[in-house]
Structure formats: C-alpha cells, structure tokens
C-alpha cells in the first residue's frame, strides 16, 4: 500500500508485507537471541531477523495473520483484579543514562503504558510512554504496509539502527523530508531539539544536491521542510527555497520561530510570492511560557508574525511543543486560534521530546510527561469538546504510536467539524493514510464518494448533516471549477477545504522505541546523501541526546558530516 501523502508518479513500490511490531525471538540457525520484525505477509505472520552471526533469517510463526493481530491486541487487556504491572509486549529502547540499546518490557500500569528497562551498566529505569493504554494497544490495529523509496541510500548490514540512511530494512519511504539548512539560530531555546554549533550555512549547491537526491529516491514529494537552526537566519534562504520550489515537490515549508517574519515585511512578501508555506513555532501566548520554552518573552514577536501571515494569507502550519506543567493549559487556546483563520491549514502538537541541546537537559520527570493521549485530552477539555478525544486516530503511514490526527471540514459559517463526526474511519481507513492532504487517487475518490453518500443518507441523524453536505458541495465546486485548474492550483484549492490537527511524538532516551524508528517517515536528508529517520538521528547521530556533548554512538555521524554528496 502506497503512502498516499504524496503523488505517486513514478510509482513507489509497496513493501512486500505489513510491518506490525517487534518481538523477541532466536536465530533459527544458531539460536542466538535476536529481536524480530513481525510482519504480516500473504495472510501469514513471519518473523524477520538479522542475526549478527548468520545474517538475515526468517521464521513463520502463524498462518493466520488476522487471528494473530486479534490475539496481540488481546494481550493488552488487563485481567480483572490485577494489581501491579501487566506485561503487554517487549521492544528495544535505550538506557537513559548510557544510551545503550536495551530490551524494554512494555507494561500497562493503572491504565498507562510504561517501558521498564534494566541496563547491565546503569541499572533499572522506567518511563511513561502513553497516558492511555487503551489508545496505545488499539493503535496497533491501524498498522498498514508501507511504501519503499525508489532508491535506498544504504544497505542493511548490521541491522537497525546502525545502518540508517535509509536502508532496505526500513519500512516507510520519506513522507516528510526536513532539511536543516543552517546551524545558526536567533534563539537559545531551553527545549531545543537540535544542537546548533553556529558554524555552517548550507550552500545552495549542496542543497540542490540534497533535493536532487530526494527526487531520485522518492520520485515526487508532497512536502519538503526547511529547518535549522533558524532557517531565516540563512543569508541565502530565498535561494534555497527557490531550489526546492520545483514540480516534483508539492509544498515547500519554511519552519521558523517567526521573528524575522514579523520584522521583515519584504521577506514575508517574498515567501508569499514564491508560494512558500510557513511552519510557525507557537508554543503559547504568554511571556512566562515563551521564557520557559524559548528562553525569552516572544509575545509581541509571535503576534507580529501571526499578523503578517494573516494579512498576506500565507498558508500556515502552527507547531506547538506541548510540555507538562509549562504550556499544557494553553492547548485549547492554540486550537481556537487555529480554527479561526482560513490560512491555518494544520496544527501540529509535539509532546516535548527531552533531547537536543536544550531538551536533553530540560528539567523533567520521565514518568510524568505529556504523551499523545494526554494532549488530546487537553484539546477535548479546553475546547469544550469542539474537537474531542474520539475525533483522533493513529496515522498508519508512520508507526501508529508516532502520529495521531484528525481532519476538520470547513463549514459555510466558518466553523469546522471533525471528520470523525461523520466518517467511520475504521471503515474508510484509506482516508487516514495521508499525512497532510487527501490525494486524488482512485481509492481515495472511492472512499470520498462513500462518505458523501453516507452523509447524504444519514443527514438527519448526523449533527449538522445538511451543513456538512453543503460544505462537501462547496469543496467539489472549488476543486472542480468550470475553468480547469493547473495541478498546483488544484493542490492549493484542495488543501483549503479542510484542516488537520496532528500530534507527533518525537522520541527521546526515555521512550525511544526501535520498533517506531523502523517505520519513521519524517527524515533528515544529509549532505552525504543519507536520509536519516528523525528520531534515530536525534538519538544516535546528533550528539545531544542528553544535552550538549553527549557522546555519539559508534556508528553516529554528525550533521553536515562529509563526504559531501557527489
């Protein structure tokens, strides 16, 4: 199944199986303990293993994939009266002290999910990974086969995560490439996820090679994001954006703290003229929140950025890093802001990952943190149910524990209604495959046709049924006007028909899960040609998993490492 977040010309091949989970097993040849990739293939369940002594191995463990999934999910049911931890499964995580890969027991405790780890060197540790065990367990039911890139950058040799870049064992192509074009910044954020060295601005020629490499690997990309550091501090940022602005790429997003946008109208206008999208970091609305998260009061600068984005009608994604006890009380406010502007296309909540120059040392309790279900609860409570807990679903494009989302349809009165209020997503899973917009593939068109007829038939039972039908009709009129649109115009029009709220939980040393990394689809393309899954890069390559000067893994390669892509 292709990830439909992107157009598929030329077509990327499907993975030959559905990656499901990781399980402990033993090499069939030498009996050495190895962690197996559990895949569903042709109705069967197979363990794929990479033994250090014997190489690739596989073992069929069930001839009934559906039954296997049912029994797997049943493992997540805690027996009545059980006191203490209920073991759900195992995975591979990291020791939060030495960052060694260690086995983790995934346990359910009082309705929440924890990793229990025991590092030979550093001793035991535990970490909260989900505030809702029910959500966590059920998310596995959303597993879907991934798509592979047209060209892998490395070959699997030693196994995940050492072969990163991406290797042919990786389970998803690059849905979102994030290119860090500079390591300069105009803020020193206490939760910074990267580790700026203030040493490099990427040369346009290098960026050009990265983009060329991406197109070679992917064929087409729905989106490319330029990040940093603060990318607007790059002296040639407009030149880089122009390079990215090519037919194979649907959307060029500049991820920024917005400081320059608010001050430099000419720059903002240039973004507008180029059709660039803005990913605006907006973690709150008050001086204390900004100071705790971004290092200083940014209220007026954020307001200025928001004002120019609205005035110029620049398509915008809001990015809110949600931190327990710091800004979780302002989650509803950012949702309300997001719903208020037609130029806001998506809202991305990122439960904070305690990694990077700032984040690695940010004061936190790994057993008391925000996770995806926790943020969704805040959204529900703080919007009075306008966007509710049950409106969200795991996104099967990545690992289902990585991203949750809801789409909202724009109604004629300017309000929005979550798709889940009128679409049965378990029936129309096709509509959940995408990470941003709904592409005009035959299967999506079929699903949308079903949705239209379903709402039409049940319009008296569905809240605001006639309004939903009117909005769907408006969408059709705008997407298929009498005068045909160019493909880019159609793309722009279609993405304005609905909004989306995403929650993406990046991992850190506490909740790192190799299983999730296996299907990561948010990647950092590097100047040496590798395309690195984001959390693997943050954990093992950036050298800041515990803050500045964290020793790199032996296989780690720092950002901007040579040799430069030829």
């Amino acid at each position, binding site marked *: 199944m292709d990830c439909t977040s992107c157009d598929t010309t030329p077509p990327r091949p499907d993975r030959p199986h559905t990656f499901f989970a990781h399980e402990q097993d033993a090499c069939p040849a030498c009996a050495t303990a190895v962690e197996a990739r559990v895949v569903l293939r042709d109705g069967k369940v197979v363990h794929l293993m990479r033994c250090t002594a014997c190489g690739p191995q596989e073992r069929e463990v069930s001839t009934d994939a559906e039954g296997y999934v049912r029994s797997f999910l049943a493992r997540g049911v805690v027996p009545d009266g059980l006191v203490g931890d209920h073991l759900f499964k195992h995975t591979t995580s990291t020791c939060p002290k030495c960052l060694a890969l260690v086995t983790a027991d995934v346990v359910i405790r009082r309705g929440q999910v924890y990793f229990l780890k025991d590092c030979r060197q550093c001793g035991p540790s535990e970490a909260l990974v989900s505030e809702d065990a029910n959500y966590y367990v059920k998310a596995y039911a959303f597993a879907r086969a991934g798509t592979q890139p047209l060209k892998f950058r490395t070959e699997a040799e030693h196994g995940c995560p050492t072969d990163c870049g991406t290797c042919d064992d990786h389970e998803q192509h690059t849905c979102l490439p994030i290119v860090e074009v500079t390591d300069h910044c105009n803020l020193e954020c206490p939760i910074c996820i990267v580790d700026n060295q203030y040493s490099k601005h990427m040369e346009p020629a290098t960026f050009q090679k990265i983009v060329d490499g991406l197109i070679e690997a992917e064929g087409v990309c729905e989106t490319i994001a330029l990040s940093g550091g603060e990318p607007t501090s790059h002296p040639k940022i407009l030149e880089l954006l122009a390079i990215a602005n090519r037919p194979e790429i649907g959307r060029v997003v500049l991820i920024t703290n917005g400081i320059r946008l608010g001050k430099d109208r000419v720059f903002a206008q240039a973004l507008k003229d180029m059709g660039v999208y803005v990913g605006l970091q907006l973690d709150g609305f008050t001086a204390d929140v900004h100071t705790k998260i971004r290092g200083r009061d940014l209220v007026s600068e954020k307001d200025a950025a928001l004002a120019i984005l609205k005035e110029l009608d620049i398509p915008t994604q809001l990015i809110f890093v949600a931190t327990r006890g710091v800004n979780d009380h302002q989650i509803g406010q950012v949702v309300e802001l997001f719903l208020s502007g037609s130029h806001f296309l998506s809202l991305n909540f990122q439960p904070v990952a305690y990694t990077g120059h700032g984040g690695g040392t940010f004061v936190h309790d790994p057993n008391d943190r925000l996770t995806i279900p926790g943020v969704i609860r805040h959204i529900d409570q703080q919007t009075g149910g306008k966007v509710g807990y049950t409106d969200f679903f795991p996104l099967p494009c990545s690992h289902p524990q990585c991203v949750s989302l809801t789409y909202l349809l724009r109604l004629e009165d300017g309000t929005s209604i979550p798709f889940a209020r009128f679409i049965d997503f378990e029936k129309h899973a096709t509509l959940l495959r995408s990470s941003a917009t709904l592409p005009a593939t035959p299967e999506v068109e079929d699903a949308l046709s079903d949705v239209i*007829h379903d709402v039409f*038939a*049940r*319009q008296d039972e569905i809240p605001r049924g006639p309004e939903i039908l009117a909005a769907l009709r408006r969408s059709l009129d705008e997407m298929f006007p009498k005068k045909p649109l160019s493909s880019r115009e159609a793309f722009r029009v279609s993405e304005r028909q609905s909004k989306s709220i995403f929650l993406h939980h990046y991992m850190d040393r506490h909740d790192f899960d190799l299983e999730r990394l296996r299907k990561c689809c948010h990647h950092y393309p590097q100047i040496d040609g590798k395309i690195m899954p984001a959390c693997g890069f943050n954990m093992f390559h950036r050298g800041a998993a515990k803050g500045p000067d964290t020793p790199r893994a032996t296989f780690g390669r720092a950002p901007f490492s040579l040799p430069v892509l030829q």
Partner: protein
Amino acid sequence: MSALCAGRIALVTGGSRGLGRAICLSLAREGAFVAFNYAKSDEDAAITVAQIEAAGGRASAHKVSVLDKPGLAELVKSLDREHGKVDILVNNAGYGQVVPLALMEESDWDEMLDTHVKGAFLATQAVLRVMVRQKYGRIINVGSLAGVKMMQAPVHYATAKAALKGFTESLAKEIGRYGITVNCVAPGVLDEGVSDHLPPARKEEYIRHCAMRRVGKLSEAADMIAFIASERASYTSGATLVVDGAV
C-alpha cells in the same frame, strides 16, 4: 413460485392513469405495496387505488408534483416511517405533446424536460437517501423507443426520453456499489397512454415496421418493469430494455 415483488415497497411517479396505472397494478399484483404520486386528477388516482385494492393489493395515492422537492421528500419520509424502507422507484411521470419544433414554445420545451428529467432527478434524489442507507434499491426510469432510435416523434419528447437513458447509465455507475440497480425500460408504441396522441397514419407505419405487427399493451411494458424491479433481475443495471415488439 412467490410473487416477484412480495414484501417490497414501491413508489411510482405519475401513477394515476395510463402506463403509470398499469405499472402500479403490475407491481401490486406482484406483491408490492404501491405508493404513487399524481399531479392533477383525484378521481383518476382513486380509480388506480380502487383497481389495486379490488385485485387484493395495497396502495396509497399522494397528490404531489414530481417538481415539488419538499413534497417528494415528505412523501418518501412518510413511506420510510410507515414501512421502514423504500425498495422500488419507477420514474414514470410524463406526458406526450405533438408539436413540431417550428411551433414549439420555450415553455413547451421547459415543461417537457422538467416533468420527465427534472422530475426523475428529484424523485430519485428523494428515495436515494433511504436506498443508500438500506443498501438496496431498484430504480426504473420509463424511457421511450423515441429516446433510443431515430423516430418521428416530438423533438422535446425524444430529447427528454434520451436524457433518461443517460441518466440511467450514469446513475447506475454512481450508486451500484450500494446494491441499487438503475435501469430504463423504453416502450415502443402502446395501445394507450401517450400513444393516444399519435396520428393514425403514424401508428400504422409503426405496425408495418414492427415484427409482431401490433402495438404493445400497457401491461406488457408494466410487467417488464415489475420484473426489473424484482430480485430476479439482480444483476441487470445500467440497461435500457426496449419493449417494442421488434421494430
């Protein structure tokens, strides 16, 4: 063998007389409860109901124009409330008018197209909600040989009937996934109904070209519609079935 439409709930547009009445009678005889609408004559509607009931069937008459969208919606709702479903829709409402294009008023054109085509659209849209929900339905549009073959027929009439053929084919594709079949039955010249307007010379010409050497009976077209409305025609959709005695 059980009746073709036993237990089914049918809605026939324009059921008070002519072919519409014959369709109602045929469906009722095959076991369906028949609701029909009519626009003008209460007396004719009462006759249809009486004939159905005399034959042991059940029927209800509703004075609602096929161009009255809210009225049609309310009619379908009432059927749904009372019976919990609507299985069959026959878009029959229509009329004939002999007038050459040269003398045709714009209002003639509009009224012909509205009654036949817009009426079918509105009635179909009204029942579609129920049929999609129940994932079952039979929609039969009453076309005409004049909409299929090159014939000497009023241009606006032939145009309207040809439109129903396109309506049938496109709709069959669009909603087939919900277990709804859509077909068109296109009668040739029949002994009553709109053929009453046909000049005798034209009727004789028709008979000369007809392999069966006669015009059809209303019941022969109506019985074909009852068959298409039945479970026996479960894999027939998007078709235009000509009932013309082989012209």
